[in-house]
């Protein structure tokens, strides 16, 4: 399936893992963003990734808890950066180019780079 194909958004796109062009996991499709307006054609504009997107999907108390633990960061992935949609969403570029590896990089600074076979 390509980004231009008609898709059943909720059942086929939401909550799928994202894999970048280097084969690295870089989050989950937490929400989607549309362009268009009433009476106009509705088009998928971007995928939203990060705990900030949970606000519209979780009860208030649960989102409060998520925000306390993980913050409310939100990253937009424009649809023109999406290559295919299947069991995962594959991107055409590296996740770091879209700011999707910030947390991974930050935590990585705390992990010693030695000792593993």
């Amino acid at each position, binding site marked *: 399936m390509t980004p231009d194909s008609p898709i059943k958004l909720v059942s086929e796109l939401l909550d799928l893992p*994202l894999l970048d062009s280097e084969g690295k*996991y870089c*989050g*989950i499709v*937490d929400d989607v963003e549309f362009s268009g307006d009433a009476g106009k054609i509705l088009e998928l504009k971007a995928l939203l990734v990060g705990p900030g997107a949970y606000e519209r999907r979780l009860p208030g108390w649960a989102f409060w808890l998520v925000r306390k633990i993980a913050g409310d960061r939100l990253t937009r992935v424009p649809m023109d950066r999406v290559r295919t949609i299947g069991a995962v969403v594959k991107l055409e570029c590296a996740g770091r180019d879209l700011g999707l590896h910030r947390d991974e990089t930050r*935590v990585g600074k705390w*992990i*010693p780079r030695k*000792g593993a*076979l």
Partner: protein
Amino acid sequence: MNPLELTLGIMTAVGGFVDISELVFAAKAGSTFGYALIWVFAVGTIGIVVFSEMSGRVAIAAKQPVFNLMRHRLGIKLGLLTLVASVISNLITCAAEVGGVALILNYLTGAPYLPMAAAMTVVMIVSIWVLPFEWIERVYGLLGLVMLVFAAALVAIHPPWDKIAGGFVPHIPAGLSTKELLTFAYFSVAILSAVMFPYEVYFYSSGGIEEGWAPKDMLKNRITSIVGMGLGSLLAIAILANSAQLFGPVNVDPEIPGTAAMQAAIPFGKWGLILALLGMFFAVSGAAVETCMANAYSIAQFFGWMWGRHKKPWEAPRFTLTWIVLFALALLIVLSGVDVMTLVEFAILFSILVLPLTYLPLLLLAGDKKYMREHVNGPLAKALGWLYFAIITAAALAALPLYFLTSGGNG
């Protein structure tokens, strides 16, 4: 096929079937009800073979492990609930295993329990850090095979094989009082839960991805799940049968894991006891590693982080930090002084409550042609899958009432 390729199934099964909870429950089941509960192990074994094979097939066909796709099928609310429930269940189980390892080391060396728990946690963290995934499964899986001493002990004590064979036929022993019937039902539910612990499936499917399974490995997946789980089941049934033969007639209640080790001491003397304790040590250590890694896999896959021990620890930093923190939390629970056997009971009870939530999405995924294409569930896998889903749902509903009615199986 290289026999070493079976180590994923062996580690999964040894860690799942002869972990600290099984060492206690299988031995207690044998001493309390003789051979009458063997069929529950057999039923549970078929169930875990069905679901582990399915999870391996999903990992191969969709190239994604179970938890990566679970959230997609369940949605964020139910997915988050499943994640939280299984993380709590796995953490309690991991703490029980860490406590169990320390207890066994205490039997073996006489060293104090709590410092042993701390030292072993460090050793297990270092082993995961240093060893690549294949070596983790080889070290813990193959060393866990020392547990075969329990099967050898069973042969050596010349048990009534006809009664053991009769135990495989589903039945309820005649002449039980209502109280005993409820205890029998509680043991059945607890054994089913302990055999089908969800962490086994998380670990197995993630392990398949770690090993880079491809469609050519479908047969390997089938053989690994059948041989691995079959071997684990054999060991658990040997412990039960030894207990029925040796402990039941003299009213010994094997409430602590050390009692189970005596099963090998009776026919083989001191070396039998040492081998049994070593086997238990490696099997329970493997279970601790398996539960901790299964938990870290679940969390990382649910949030779409980089994960896996086929990568260097610094290449999947959040995953690495997660399994280290989970081991530290498990150790903290042990250091709080809570009794290991209490932890075992809670782990089993909590895990059975989450079983249906774990296996439903797997069943839906494996039956979805869009992901699975030609590897979609066939009629047999579909029928067995839904049958076992009905069984574990009934068991989950019955677990809490039975726990309270029988005071946790103590009558």
